[in-house]
């Protein structure tokens, strides 16, 4: 049976590590390499941090929803918030663009670099949903099956 998870948590910094841990654990059940798992952790960390820093900057107790499931040869991860939304998604995704000092504007760059697909849906005042897709490496599958 294919695995699926859904986790709701308060948008506080401490829960970014929790989201990473959940995804690393799920990815570990699939045939991801250690390097893939590291990349998944970074992408999830960026998406959840964005919800906390940007979406809920004025609402510290906002809820973040983390969902993940296997879709044939990929792991799909969806991070949703009901925060302030992004007015200009294209601008938000530009490298080095940031609305906050001390931030590098690299969150979406890392998500794009490490994932096979990235989709951002957002509506100002309603919230943002980021969908990350990572293909399960066929090489890793071969390696694992040869171990059995």
């Amino acid at each position: 049976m294919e695995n699926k998870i859904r986790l709701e948590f308060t948008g506080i910094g401490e829960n970014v590590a929790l989201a990473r841990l959940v995804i690393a654990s799920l990815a570990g059940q699939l045939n991801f390499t250690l390097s893939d798992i590291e990349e998944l952790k970074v992408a999830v960390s960026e998406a959840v941090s964005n919800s906390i820093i940007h979406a809920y900057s004025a609402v510290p107790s906002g809820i973040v929803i983390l969902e993940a499931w296997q879709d044939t040869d990929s792991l799909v991860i969806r991070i949703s918030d009901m925060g302030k939304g992004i007015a200009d998604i294209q601008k938000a995704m530009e490298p080095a663009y940031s609305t906050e000092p001390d931030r590098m504007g690299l969150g979406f760059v890392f998500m794009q670099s490490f994932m096979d697909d990235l989709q951002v849906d957002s509506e100002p005042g309603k919230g943002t949903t980021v969908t990350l897709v990572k293909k399960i490496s066929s090489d890793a599958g071969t390696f694992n099956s040869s171990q059995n």
Partner: protein
Amino acid sequence: MNLEKKYHRDTLVIKIAGEFDLVTAEEFRRVVDPELERRQVRNLVINLGGVSFIDSSGLGVIIGRYKKLSQSGGKLWIAAARPPVRKILELSGIQKIIRFYESEKQALEAVREA
């Protein structure tokens, strides 16, 4: 995150262990900024040897300290980053402005020679 600070003359060495993310970036800022201001630190060496994970929040706080030090004529050096962390640092492009060293000792030697 575990954060240790020590001084070698006018160089502040910060040794970090754990995951360098949104929460720990704030802790880093809270510990390091008063030191930079109070002690008029010229050079900051960040030993990332114990860091198992870094994201753009961790990178952002490093760049922020780099900018602060540059304004006062100081410098920032990174030491001992492990491969997964180094990969993120390289992807961010910060090696164009901040030099990486294999060990804290090598970074401190570079500071002395600078």
